[in-house]
């Protein structure tokens, strides 16, 4: 018995060594290749290339980290994650550039969302709608149509200052230019068409009917009382909406009075909140019914991504536009560029370090936020109870549930957390790469490659993979400018930008062939 145990232990040990031998070899070869590549660069180039790689890596990491947390815990590869990243950018841009319109749309949304907090009440009502599920479902469809109609009628009564992407003078692109030149004027606010109270009540009613319709589709009716806390929160949302509406002009005035830096931080904060809300919404309404059909979850997230793209196209228009960099990172003139580490705090747009010129926003701020998120999430995972539950849930969600922990709530939380990180990445990326409906797919691809390289369920792997992909991309771009002297070629070989994704995919395929679970992933799941 004991000798068998020792044998097994020895066997396991040698297995671990064998496994890690490939891993260590791959890491060493990668390190060597990168060092060799950097060695081929001019001296003043290598530092800026590293920093640019880290910057791209930081954004990729923000997308990849959420993907990795979500996939690790619930085995859902959220292919809509890139589009949440994109949504974060667009929402951030809106808060930053056109806060007035954002406020306008928030008010009806709050009113519409309030009834959804009273879900137990609607479920109870729904269970009394009809005897058979068929009848209930039929009534549900009717309610859905009716609720949609009421909502639409009420929303159109609201004073919404929406830009017109079709008209250049009032399109997102021209707003960006205006804010760049500091000539952005608040749009003129409309007033209610018809009685304000009617529109407000109509919207709450619409939300209630929609919530009731949704609960009537549910299979099992769980008996649960509506807690007072839910009631108070719902009432609070309605009150908040009304207060926001009444004090709209003074809020707008205050926000537009802020410096662009503060507005940018506000944009980051709100985009994070919106990202979390969208994530939670997707998980609860769409992913949750499908936990038994993982392939369908994957297909579903694809669909959600396309819906998000179409929504963005409808609201913000198809053309790409830019986001002005906040004043804090955009200084020029006297004393610029800044020198050394201190230069990052000089308010200049660029800084000189080790003979390289870096952009304070791209290579300073983005990298800093990336590191902060890495440290923050690691601490969350290692030091808090919820982190402990997440780590345990990655391994065995059923057992966690059997300990009396509501794992579904943790799922929702992690989905919201992951989505908020992606949205944060979106806002951060917007001033440096601009806004387009394709940005989500691009960074999703990078993030997926980073994850596959680093190991799908490993948070550390996500970080390492993201940095690796970022460095690789920047290296190739740099070599595209400089050219590589290859034997048998007269001209230096210049990789075109097209080869950037190709190189990352190639790296992914090679790593996966050697280590199917990625650099840091566990081999079996």
């Amino acid at each position, binding site marked *: 018995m004991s000798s068998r145990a020792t044998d097994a232990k020895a066997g396991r040990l040698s297995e671990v060594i064998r496994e890690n031998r490939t891993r260590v070899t791959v890491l060493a070869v990668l390190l060597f290749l990168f060092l060799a590549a950097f060695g081929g660069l001019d001296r003043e180039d290598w530092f800026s290339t590293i920093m640019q790689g880290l910057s791209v890596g930081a954004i990729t990491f923000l997308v990849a980290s959420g993907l990795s947390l979500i996939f690790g815990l619930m085995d859902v590869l959220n292919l809509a994650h890139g589009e949440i990243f994109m949504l974060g950018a667009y929402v951030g841009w809106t808060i930053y550039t056109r806060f007035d319109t954002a406020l306008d749309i928030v008010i009806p949304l709050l009113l519409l969302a309030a009834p959804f907090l009273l879900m137990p009440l609607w479920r109870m009502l729904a269970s009394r709608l009809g005897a058979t599920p068929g009848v209930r479902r039929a009534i549900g469809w009717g309610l859905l149509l009716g609720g949609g109609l009421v909502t639409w009628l009420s929303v159109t009564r609201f004073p919404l200052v929406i830009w017109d992407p079709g008209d250049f003078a009032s399109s997102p692109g021209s707003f960006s230019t205006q804010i760049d030149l500091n000539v952005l004027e608040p749009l003129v606010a409309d007033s209610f068409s018809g009685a304000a109270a009617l529109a407000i009540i109509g919207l709450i009613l619409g939300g209630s009917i929609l919530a009731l319709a949704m609960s009537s589709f549910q299979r099992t009716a769980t008996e649960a009382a509506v807690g007072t806390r839910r009631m108070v929160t719902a009432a609070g949302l309605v009150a908040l909406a009304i207060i926001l509406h009444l004090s709209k002009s003074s809020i707008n005035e205050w926000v537009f009075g802020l410096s662009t830096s503060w507005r940018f931080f506000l944009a980051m904060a709100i985009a994070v909140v919106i990202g979390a809300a969208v994530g939670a919404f997707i998980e609860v309404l769409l992913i949750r019914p499908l936990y038994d059909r993982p392939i*369908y979850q*994957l297909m*579903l997230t694809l*669909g959600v991504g396309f819906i998000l793209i*179409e929504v963005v196209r409808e609201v913000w228009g198809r053309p790409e536009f830019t986001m002005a960099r906040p004043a804090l990172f955009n200084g020029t003139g006297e004393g610029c560029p800044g020198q050394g580490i201190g230069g990052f705090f000089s308010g200049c747009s660029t800084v000189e370090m080790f003979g390289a010129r870096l952009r304070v926003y791209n290579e300073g701020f983005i990298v800093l936020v990336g590191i902060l998120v890495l440290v923050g999430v690691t601490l969350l995972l290692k030091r808090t109870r919820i982190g402990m539950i997440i780590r345990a849930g990655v391994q065995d969600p059923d057992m966690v549930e059997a300990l009396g922990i509501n794992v579904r709530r943790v799922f929702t939380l992690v989905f919201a957390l992951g989505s908020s990180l992606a949205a944060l990445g979106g806002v951060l990326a917007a001033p440096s790469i601009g806004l387009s409906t394709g940005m989500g797919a691009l960074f999703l691809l990078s993030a*997926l490659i980073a994850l596959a390289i680093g190991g799908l369920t490993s948070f550390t792997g996500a970080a390492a993979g993201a940095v690796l992909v970022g460095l690789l991309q920047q290296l190739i771009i740099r070599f595209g400018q400089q050219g590589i002297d290859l034997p048998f070629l007269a001209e230096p070989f210049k990789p075109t930008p*097209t080869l950037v994704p190709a190189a990352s995919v190639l790296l992914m395929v090679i790593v*996966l062939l050697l280590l*199917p679970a990625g650099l840091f992933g566990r081999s079996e799941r």
Partner: protein
Amino acid sequence: MTSANPSVAAGFRSWLQRRRGLLLLAAALVLFPFVISILIDGQGIGAVFSNDQGNARFLQGLAIEIFILALYAISYDLVLGITGLLSFGHAMFFAVGAYGFGILLKSFDIAWPVVVLILLVAALVQAVLFAIVLPRVKGITFALVTLGLASVFWIVIQSSDLSDWAGAEIGLQGVQPPVWFLDTTNERFAFYLVTIAILIGVFIVYTRIVDSPAGKVMVAIRENEDRALMLGYNTFWFKLLALTVASITAVLAGSLHALHQPIVTPNVAGLGFTVTALLMILIGGVGTISGALVGAAVFRLLQFYLDKWFGGASDLLIGLAYVAIVLYLPFGIVGTWRAKAVQRQKGLDFVGSLVSGRKR
């Protein structure tokens, strides 16, 4: 000779018997333009042959699009629905056909049978390219690899370096039909018949593959690969077979697409076009060969009419429809219909239990 004849005739008769539905469908499709021409356009039968403008010609065009999409969907169904390989790069299979056929004809002026041969080789190569990682990875990781490969193709094909051949972001234009029966502009009815013939041929081949021992192994791989391995099958070769057949079919569909459409856009290489394939087989029913045909027809008609009625919002509506189907109609039209039939026959609640699943 004399003894063989009756048995051949009998075999043919029994084949007719088995394929009755398919042959009726083919006949109906061939007659369809004439019916439209007479009833709706008020023109004669000759209008179809002389390629006159009208609903008959337009609807033939729409039908050809459906047939091409059906070829594409059927090939994806073999990979995903039958063999259970989660490929997110299937659009590349189609796009290699569309761009390859177009570029070889237009820029290199190669005789079209040679082009077909070259594309056949290309189809084999890309199937092997996809399969290269298969011995080591499966499931989600395979999906990532295929997604990555296809994304590279998508980015490369619209890069400015290739704009002389592929037309960059605008797409490939000006592909001239090499022979008269592949000329969709001037000989639409001929092209229509060609596509019908190809689709029916492919459909028969696919049903035979699925019913063959190899097809059984493919289904076994989908259901439980470890068990298939334990039974002594080298599952890799069957996966490669499925990918190869699907690749050839999709390349064929892409080539027809390049002939039929005035412009091949880079969209056919994007993830969105893989989602289109997914949507079509979801509508029809994953894992059902005939479902892919139904799905393609429903999808294209839905897209056409939504576009007509709602314009720019149609893509949004299609996205919503897709999500609704994933949530509420997981077995698609054909799959649900068959499940209902099974339920009626055996009174089994089996599928119901799959749908409702277990709580968690």
